[in-house]
């Protein structure tokens, strides 16, 4: 097993030196093995999304280094490390270009991190593969490949974004509360698609979620964050046997305070 992602001593402070100063990541160390599927939980402002954004390269980190599959990406902006990373965002509008057709979006994703030349964007020989992959979503989108993505529902767009993120095998897949903006039924559908896509492509995955039950039931590893630090890191057997109550007790023991996240409590 090789290390797919390595964060060592990563720190990020927003609005440094102002009254709104916020230490979002505080010397975070983390290593993900190949094929790890890690769920990340924690209260609001715990640093979950910040950690994902640090890996994605949304802004430069203040301290520490980030390696993806052995490559030091700390000095690369998001678009330059995109060839290693698949991303799905919380807002279903963010992951796709609304003004472009489904197949155009897929073609853009199929070229992720590669040179974009002056040949036709949607290569005729790729179209059949796109159709087959769309069919696996089970949403009937394979018959609507020329439809503009802006006409799809949030759940459909999230499913397309998932497909786009995995079309060009990423070294790591980052899912940032990608079901939080969906209704419960659609959220479940997208979550099941996520499991299928991660398993069939053997993807190393990090998924932020507010739903403790999902966090426990999905993946082989669970991380709990608080105040920019990793409080808890459970794997394998130990994780499989976790309950939501265990998780809350562990949080209290580790942080010395009660777990006070309404959303997390309500969604158990």
């Amino acid at each position, binding site marked *: 097993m090789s290390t797919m992602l390595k964060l060592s001593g990563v720190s990020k402070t927003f609005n440094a030196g102002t009254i709104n100063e916020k230490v979002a990541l505080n010397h975070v160390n983390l290593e993900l093995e190949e094929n790890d599927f890690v769920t990340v939980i924690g209260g609001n402002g715990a640093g979950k999304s910040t950690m994902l954004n640090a890996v*994605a390269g949304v802004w430069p980190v203040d301290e520490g280094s980030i390696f993806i599959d052995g490559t030091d990406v700390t000095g690369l902006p*998001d*678009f*330059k490390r*995109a*060839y290693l*990373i698949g*991303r799905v*965002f919380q807002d279903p*509008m*963010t*992951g*796709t*270009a*609304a*003004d*472009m057709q489904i197949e*155009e979006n897929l*073609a*853009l*994703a199929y*070229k*992720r*991190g*590669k040179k*974009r*030349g*002056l*040949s*036709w*964007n949607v290569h005729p020989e790729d179209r059949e593969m796109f159709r087959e992959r769309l069919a696996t979503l089970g949403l009937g989108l394979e018959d609507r490949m020329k439809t503009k993505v802006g006409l799809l529902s949030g759940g459909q767009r999230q499913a397309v974004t998932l497909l*786009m993120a995995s079309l060009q095998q990423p070294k790591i897949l980052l899912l940032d509360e990608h079901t939080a903006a969906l209704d419960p039924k659609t959220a479940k559908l997208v979550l099941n698609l996520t499991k299928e896509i991660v398993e069939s492509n053997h993807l190393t995955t990090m998924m932020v979620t507010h739903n403790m039950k999902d966090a426990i039931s999905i993946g082989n590893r669970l991380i709990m964050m608080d105040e920019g630090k990793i409080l808890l890191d459970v794997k394998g057997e130990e994780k499989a046997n976790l309950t939501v109550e265990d998780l809350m007790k562990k949080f209290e023991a580790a942080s010395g305070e009660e777990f006070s996240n309404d959303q997390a409590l309500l969604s158990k």
Partner: protein
Amino acid sequence: MNLNFGNLFGAFPGGIAQGLIWGFMALGVYITFRLLDIADLTVDGSFTTGGAVTVMLILAGVNPWVALLCALGAGILAGTVTGLLHTVFDIPAILSGILTQFALYSINLAIMGMTANKGLPVDKYKLAVTSRNINSSILTALLLTALVIAVLYWYFGTEHGSAMRATGSNPEMSKAQGININTMKVIGLAMSNGFVAMSGGLLSQYQGFADINMGRGAIVIGLAAVIIGEVLGNALLGKRMNFAGRLAFISLGGVIYYLVIVIVLWLKLDSNYLKLLTAVVVAIFLSVPNIQAKMKTSFSRAGKRSVKSSREVSE
């Protein structure tokens, strides 16, 4: 008032020729305004730059077609400056365009040898387009427009062009797909201003002079053409309109805009009010979609509904 319809129809071919030239410019404006979602004010300056470069080169003995290509290059340079101000130095796009346009005023004067107006002895040269031969000018302008539409249709269907469209549609998604959106914006602005300057070169040949103020308000005229073309295209073709059709209608929008001007002039209205008229028309068309949205939902409507329903309850 004595209105002669013969005069009106006599003025139409000239109007069509100039409209096609402005429509050519509108295709450049479309790239930034619709595809990149940037209102680029560079064009007021780069249009004049194109005219100035073309006239000076022709006077220096350069072939008029080669002069047009040089105008294209000058416009590309101007757009690149705006793009770099915006992407490298993070100046808002609209302000970057204003800065370049402002600087171009001096540069355009310098190109024309510090005179505000430079005439072209039209009979001495074999020009690409000229008001002396309106019919052949219309044909030339039509062929050029068709060529540019073909090039744009091809480019924006390629991997590179699609990445540019994605940049305008969703910058976040584009970055996640490994697209350098800054590079895309610079290339788009350069391309757009290239076409705009070439259009300025065409107009200076057609009218036989370059003038320091010939580009004033070009962005508004370009927007007018884009909007007229889109409204017309949607009305006539609706969902069947593809990208090439859209571009053709934008060019047609330029022609319609210019024919309206011909009619306004024929009505002997004071041409000094033309800019006011154009601005009003563009403002109306830009606001129509927003007003339509407000017709469906707004605070004042919600308030009225609330008053009505509470009255019903009390009755």
